[in-house]
């Protein structure tokens, strides 16, 4: 961690000052990418098409005929600046979805984001639980059969794609055994399978981090002292060794949580989870510029906040950093 040596308040203030610049850079980059994709979001090859003059008028209405105007107009409405200046009736307006004109992006995010967050955060919790248990078990007796087992499982978790694991779990636990519902969202039972599937690669990585940390820690001087005092092995491991072995996990948690929140598209698809991932991919494919820009803006803001949270936590867990 390369956080500057300053107070926590200073760290937070500094990051919040950086935030708009980072988000603006992301916005500009996404804008360039989204506009350079060929195609017209108002066109629909499969459906019936509105007459040409209507399409022209809609292009004007959404400022699709003028990228520069779109850039500033959208930025003003999304950031709330237009609202502050009294030019728009509401702040943080991410605009109507171009593909689904009955919906605006704020509404789409309001329904999809809590779902994706529930999925992503549950997955991280499961990943931490599995990862620490497996890593500790393996790290305490490196080279044992149990260790080999956890290692194999970790490799499987990292290398098997989630659509394979997801489909297999779905078939076994939901269809054959009927333990979990398929499709639909709401309640712990519907979260369990997709969250578990999503957690596996993270769990595998965490278990390897913890295992290495444990092996190192268990041979350290203070652990030997504790063992010499007659404390049982598991107590030493969980009370003394784990707190240090956990540090690398903590720095991994920030980016990993961000990945779990944003990268759950495949899992969402397999389990029909109504999260934001599916909408985002549809938006990219259909060149739904407002939807793509809106999702990217919200996610990049969240990403910055997560990293900030992890940095603050890190100081709390390991005061030597400050």
């Amino acid at each position, binding site marked *: 961690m390369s956080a500057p040596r300053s107070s926590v308040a200073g760290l937070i203030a500094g990051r919040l000052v950086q935030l708009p610049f980072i988000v603006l850079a992301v916005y500009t980059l996404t804008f360039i990418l989204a506009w350079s994709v060929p195609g017209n979001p108002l066109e629909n090859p499969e*459906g019936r098409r509105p007459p040409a003059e209507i399409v022209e*008028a809609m292009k004007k209405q959404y400022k699709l005929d003028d990228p520069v105007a779109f850039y500033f107009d959208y930025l003003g409405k999304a950031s709330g600046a237009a609202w502050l200046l009294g030019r728009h009736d509401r702040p943080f307006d991410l605009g109507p979805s171009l593909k689904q*004109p009955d919906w605006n992006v704020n509404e789409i995010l309001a329904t999809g984001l809590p779902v994706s967050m529930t999925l992503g*955060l549950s997955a991280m919790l499961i990943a931490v639980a599995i990862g620490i248990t497996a890593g500790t078990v393996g790290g305490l007796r490196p080279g044992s059969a149990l260790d080999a087992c956890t290692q194999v499982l970790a490799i499987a978790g990292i290398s098997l794609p989630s659509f394979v694991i997801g489909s297999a779990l779905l078939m076994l636990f939901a269809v054959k055994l009927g333990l979990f519902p398929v499709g639909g969202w709401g309640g712990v039972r519907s979260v369990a399978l997709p969250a578990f599937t999503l957690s596996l690669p993270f769990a595998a990585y965490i278990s390897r981090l913890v295992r290495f940390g444990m092996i190192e820690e268990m041979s350290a001087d203070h652990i030997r002292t504790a063992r010499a005092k007659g404390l049982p092995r598991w107590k030493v491991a969980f009370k003394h060794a784990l707190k240090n072995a956990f540090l690398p996990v903590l720095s991994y948690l920030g980016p990993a949580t961000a990945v779990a929140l944003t990268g759950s598209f495949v899992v969402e*698809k*397999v389990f*029909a989870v109504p999260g934001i991932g599916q*909408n985002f991919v549809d938006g990219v494919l259909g060149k739904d510029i407002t939807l793509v820009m809106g999702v990217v803006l919200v996610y990049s803001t969240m990403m910055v906040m997560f990293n900030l949270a992890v940095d603050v936590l890190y100081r*709390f867990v390991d005061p030597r950093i400050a």
Partner: protein
Amino acid sequence: MLYAPSVRVLAPVLLLILALLAAMSLDSPLPPADLVIIERSDCYTLDPQRMSYQHELRRARVLYETLVNLRAADCAVVPGVAERWEASEDRKTHVFHLRADAKWSNGDPVTSRDFAYSWRRAILPDTAADYSALFFAIRGAREFHERRAAKLKEFARAPGDPDALWRETEADFARTVAIETPDDRTLVVHLNTPLAYFLDLCAFPCFAPVHAASVEPFVSIERATGRLIQRHDWTKPGRIVTNGAYVPTVWRYKRDMRLEANPHYWNRAEVLARTVECRTIENPNTGVLSFQSGGADWLTDLGPEYKTEMLAERKAYLARFRGEIEAGLARGAIEDDIVGGLPPPGPGERRDVRGFNAFGTDFFSFNCRPELPGGKANPFHDARVRRAFALAVDKQQLVERVTRLGERVAGTLVPPDSIPGYPRVEGLGLDVARARAELKAAGYEDRDGDGVIEDARGERFPTVDILYSTASPRYQNLALAMRDMWKRELRVAAECRGKDSKLYKEDLKKGNFMIARGGWYGDYGDPTTWLDLQRRGNGNNDRGYESDEFERRMDEAEAETDPARRLARLAEVERWLFTEEAPLIPICNYVTVYMYDPSRLGGIAEHPRLEQDISGLGRRDGAPAPAPAPESMR
């Protein structure tokens, strides 16, 4: 102090848990509904005037009630908001009398002005309604639409006062479009022609009323262009006001929609399920698994990868009980009621899937233009060549070996028994000898014995360019199978060309093909929704078919004022079109495959138009809940 570090390790985990609880509190699960339906895609809109997709229209039928309804069982016209109606002698004027107890879900009465307001929305070019052309049957509507479009164009060039333009438009509509509202409960409509299917049109969801008072606040006039801009926020639960069987109370984008019985609906006693959950599951695999694990009562669109196998399992099940089913049908019982009462299926059998003949026909179009792009002569301009190619297709084999959904082979476009009073029409069947004779008459035969036919000058029949879309393997398989049939039976060279949907459409519109995949679902209950496809200048006449004879025959048949004689004459036109002209080769009627267990769910409509009325669906175990009095929801 000894435990402090451990607590610190737990802190991030606690933080994760807190964030998770916060996220979960933002998203509450719904209580179970009386009926759960799985759809492949969410509704694009709940604005009836802007709808065009089948699943949307199905939803609209239970949200908005039209003047008249189509009875699901036979598509007969029955009273809706109008309790009775009459037509003038020349059938150009229709008077609808609205029922006194027709109410919006907020308790307001449904008035004739609601219909006039909604129909104006549909006719205005500003709304960009897909089906605005259906309203052009009304006297003055087309002219008004065109005038308004021209005015807007002019305004865009030289802007003036947008409010004045709108006032002028409103006055123009009231003056020129023949929709009259003499009082709140009477609607008078004058038509251009004695349109035989006008009542059927009135049952189409785009003709449904919207609640003006809740729509108007979201309508504004764009200063720069003078256009009416309609924000669609009024379609959201909490704001939306409907006059049909249900009101949406929850709508989460691409996730689910919850419908609750409308306490003010006049016919609420007939509404079976009090609550309906319409869930969107885009992945067809997950949709099937969800149904199979008991997550839904009805899956409206089974993925293509399952259909064949599952329908075969149904066939095996039905075969075991053939005697019982035939006896039941002879008694006049409905197939689902019989099958639902039979013992449960054994291994390798199922009854929870069923294919229905839809109001759609799968076909391949001939390019009928005199020339192909590039200026080469088009052999398919000659009706004899078209007939030859149509006669050489073994459709029975195509549906049995290629598409394999138990489709009904089609000789013409209009699906049999789909339109009350329209007779069955025979088209061209398989007749290879006659096909060869037709080609010979057109001047094509194998003159030099090389196995390929040539014309009189010894030039080979050009390689037949068969265009299909790659959106589904179905069309590739059909194209390949037909290519082989033509190669074998007619001795022509042929090549298949697959393009993705967009490029396929472009080639189709430009006439860059000789034979191309096509297909059509009928929009309303009249043969013209099919026959008009061959009309000169029709936007969907991809064949470039033009025939004065056909136009004359159609005009004559349409001029017939007696409905029964009119249908008979149209049938004669269709027979002539498909036995003589053959602008396209009808292959089969589309099959729509549903998943539902007839022992658990009752009320699925069998009529080919598949106008399923969701309010008529109910679980067989639960007796319909009593309809609450209007006050109970307030």
